[in-house]
């Protein structure tokens, strides 16, 4: 990822070399940088594209997604993301937003599951429909308080399993999610790391995804966030909408309950 970026600008490999600056003023200036980005978030471009896609007829059944039930009834998008993941009786399993969108594209639009899951993470060469749909749906929960329910036993199971995965150490580097996200006030290089085992940390971390990543020029979903964390953990690839990804999302989303959802965001 950094490799691509470096190539894009065709500059000498200065990767992480940074000139001398006082740490405190550096932190202030980076805060200023982040504030300046808030003024215009290209995620809006994805939201607009996603809304159009939501309403457009597509697939073998030539149907739109407007009757898709995200948990609050067919076609209800407003506030739906703040209650996901949830147990869906029609599928008899716990689903996060991406899983549910795949389900709706199969059930309503008649796509094969493989087609509905294809190209989940976009590139300049190939934009991802999924990222646009997720941008639109999540944007419709902006300002809504996270309210994930563990009433259903399968939600409780997903939460418990997600917690175990969060603390699972493995691979050549012995990394777990908790390695970087288990303590307050830590950062990797200059990037702050939310402590996802604390209420405040989970709230801050979870409610600011999806996000437009300026380093990539793409909108990234929570499924992407998990996928790429495991890549950097040196794990094999986490499959898109896999049960582990949904369980981990359930663990983190539930821990974020009570906080106002605040995405799509913009991040480095």
């Amino acid at each position: 990822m950094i490799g691509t970026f470096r190539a894009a600008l065709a500059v000498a490999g200065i990767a992480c070399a940074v000139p001398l600056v006082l740490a405190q003023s550096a932190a202030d200036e980076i805060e200023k940088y982040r504030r300046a980005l808030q003024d215009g978030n290209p995620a809006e471009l994805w939201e607009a594209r996603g809304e159009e896609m939501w309403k457009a007829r597509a697939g073998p059944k030539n149907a739109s997604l407007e009757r898709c039930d995200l948990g609050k009834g067919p076609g209800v998008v407003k506030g739906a993301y703040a209650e996901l993941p949830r147990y869906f009786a029609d599928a008899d399993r716990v689903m996060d937003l991406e899983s549910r969108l795949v389900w709706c594209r199969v059930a309503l639009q008649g796509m094969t599951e493989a087609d509905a899951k294809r190209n989940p993470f976009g590139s300049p060469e190939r934009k991802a429909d999924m990222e646009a749909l997720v941008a639109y749906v999540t944007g419709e929960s902006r300002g809504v308080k996270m309210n994930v329910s563990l009433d259903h036993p399968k939600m409780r199971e997903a939460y418990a399993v997600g917690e175990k995965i969060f603390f699972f150490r493995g691979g050549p580097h012995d990394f777990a999610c908790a390695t970087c996200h288990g303590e307050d006030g830590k950062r990797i290089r200059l990037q702050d790391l939310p402590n996802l085992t604390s209420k405040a940390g989970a709230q801050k971390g979870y409610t600011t995804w999806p996000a437009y990543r300026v380093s990539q020029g793409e909108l990234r979903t929570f499924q992407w966030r998990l996928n790429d964390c495991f890549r950097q953990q040196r794990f094999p690839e986490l499959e898109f909408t896999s049960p582990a990804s949904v369980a981990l999302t359930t663990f983190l989303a539930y821990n974020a309950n009570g906080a106002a959802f605040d995405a799509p965001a913009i991040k480095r």
Partner: protein
Amino acid sequence: MDARRREVLKTGGGVSLLALVAAAGWLKPGDALAQGAAWNKAAFETHSLDETMKAFGGSAPAQSKDIAFVSTPDIAENGAVVPVGVSSSIPKTESIAILVEKNPNMLAAVFDIPAGTDPAVSTRIKMGQSSNVYALVKADGKYYVASKEIKVTLGGCGG
């Protein structure tokens, strides 16, 4: 816009297209840095301020305290997107250009400021590395410049 274009084509005849376009307010003759060219290729392929000034047909700019960088951080968390805002309080500002000393080509953007538009623009640029950034202003036919160093950091590095 299509309507205007048709109108231009219809009127046609002896009048040059450029004059008509200019009359329609699309291009003002001698307008600032643009020099009437649609896209100043030469200016976008320069590697020093001197070269850029040559491409603009201007002389060496004077340092000015009346040009300010607005909402422009000293450090960018990522060089792919560096917010830069420039505002000029020099009377009769006609245009504002943003240049990055150490980019492969210096000139990033030029904005022509018609009368009635605030001499202040904000955009986001790419920076390959830490560098001086110049704000070049043309006002009443003369050139002025201010500069600021912006440091670029890269994070993560897990790849």
